[in-house]
Structure formats: C-alpha cells, structure tokens
C-alpha cells in the first residue's frame, strides 16, 4: 500500500507547490493509462502520446486549481476522454495530407500474426464508432471501470451511460460481424 504522503491527492497538493519529485511520481503512475487509453481512443500511438503529454502538462499547470471533489483518477479519465474527443475533432478539420502518415508500430512483435490481425480489426471497428461510444467501450472493457465511475468519467448519469454502452456494444458487434462476413466472402 502506498504511504499517505504518496496518494494522488497528496501528490497533487505537493505539485501545486511546484514539487517536481511529486509530479514525476504522479505522471509515472498514470502515464501508462493515458497512453493506452489514448491509443485505443485515437487509433494512433503518436496521437496518443501527444494527448497524454498535453494532459500531463495540464496536471502540472492546473494543480493549484485542483479540488478533490472526486477521485483523481475519475478526474483524469474525464480529462483524457475530453482531450481525445477534441483531438479527434481537430484532426478531422485538418486538410488531407496534413495527417500523420507514419505507420504505428502496433502492439509489438511478441503477439502472433493472427492476434495482430484481430487487434487491427478491433482498432478499425472502434475507430468507426462515434467518440462517446468508443470512450464507453474503452473505459468499460479495457480500463475495467465500473459503470458508475465510467459514467462520472464521461460526464453522464449512470442510466445514460448504460444506454450509451449498450448502443456502443451493438454498433461494435455490427461493425465486427460485417467485416468478418466480408473477409469470409473474399
């Protein structure tokens, strides 16, 4: 168990006092989540790292204004969700040709070819979902948040979140099944 002085809340108070050590500790603790979540939301490793960096810098700059009304992680999920949706919106507004064309390295060579293929299929299907539905899937399935925490992270009521998750699941199922039947025909 982490000491009381190292809880997220205690670290935020120290960051507000410009404590760089506390900042390093907090960022190191949550950076994996930010990058994984960003990659699943945006479908690109490079974009995920940009958004993670932007959000982490916000922690440094806004620590003085942070009020512990909710758990730090709930606040972070919410900020990441909104940052990813904004990023996606901005990217859509860029003219063609300005998009990053560097290929993503993907999940790494240690997983099998078939798994990589399936991973790409899910990535593509997730990418076709509306951003809020995508966030619902990523928070529930990959970050394994309970519905209440995921609802707080997306700024929805519990009921609205459950409906969103249901719709997201249906859309994803349709996307994946359609793709699979197409692949079967080829």
């Amino acid at each position, binding site marked *: 168990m982490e000491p009381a002085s190292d809880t997220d809340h205690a670290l935020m108070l120290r960051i507000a006092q410009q404590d*760089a050590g506390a900042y390093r500790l907090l960022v190191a603790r949550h950076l994996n989540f930010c990058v994984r979540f960003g990659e699943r939301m945006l479908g690109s490793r490079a974009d995920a790292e940009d958004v993670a960096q932007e959000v982490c810098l916000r922690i440094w700059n806004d620590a003085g204004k942070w009020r512990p009304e909710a758990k730090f992680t709930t606040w972070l999920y919410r900020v990441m969700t909104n940052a990813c949706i904004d990023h996606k919106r901005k990217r859509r507004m860029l003219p063609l040709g300005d998009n990053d064309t560097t290929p993503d390295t993907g999940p790494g060579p240690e997983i099998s070819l078939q798994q990589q293929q399936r991973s790409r299929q899910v990535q593509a299907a997730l990418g076709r979902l509306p951003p809020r539905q995508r966030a619902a899937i990523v928070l529930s399935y990959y970050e394994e948040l309970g519905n209440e925490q995921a609802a707080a992270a997306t700024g929805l009521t519990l009921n609205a979140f459950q409906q969103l998750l249901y719709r997201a699941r249906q859309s994803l199922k349709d996307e*994946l099944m359609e793709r699979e039947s197409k692949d079967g025909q080829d």
Partner: protein
Amino acid sequence: MDKIDEFLGAYAVRDADRELLERIITAAAAQPRPARRHIFAQAAMFAAVAVTGFWLGNATPAPQTATTQSNFMDNVILGPDSVAEMQM
C-alpha cells in the same frame, strides 16, 4: 464468452516508454511556473488600475462656461420640455 468480448480481448497496446515520461518531465520544467505567473498577472492588473486611476484623477476637462454647461444639461441630457421648445 460473447464473440465480441473475445475480439475486444485481442486488441493489445504497448505501455508508455520511459522516454515519453522524461519528455513530459522536461516539458513541464520548461513551463513558466504557474504560481509566479499568477503574481505577474496580479501585478500587471494592479499597475493598469493605478495608471488608469492616475490618468482619470489628473485629466483636465475642457474649459466650459456656466452657460454652455447649463445649455448642454437642458438640451442634450434632459431634453426639451415641450414640443414647442423642440421646434424653436
């Protein structure tokens, strides 16, 4: 297990690298310190108020006679008392 859960389980992503962490820490260190920025903002606001107050306090109005002031008050600010006066 539902087919969709099986699919979702296949979507693996890598964890963040140490390099990214170092990049973020360096970028944060290079940011202007928020506490000091706040003091600058307050000082700038105070200076702006002081200069405006000084200027207002020392601004000399254009010389006006008692009559022109009274006409201005009657005709422009208060307006004419009657239609007849308006047509004059």
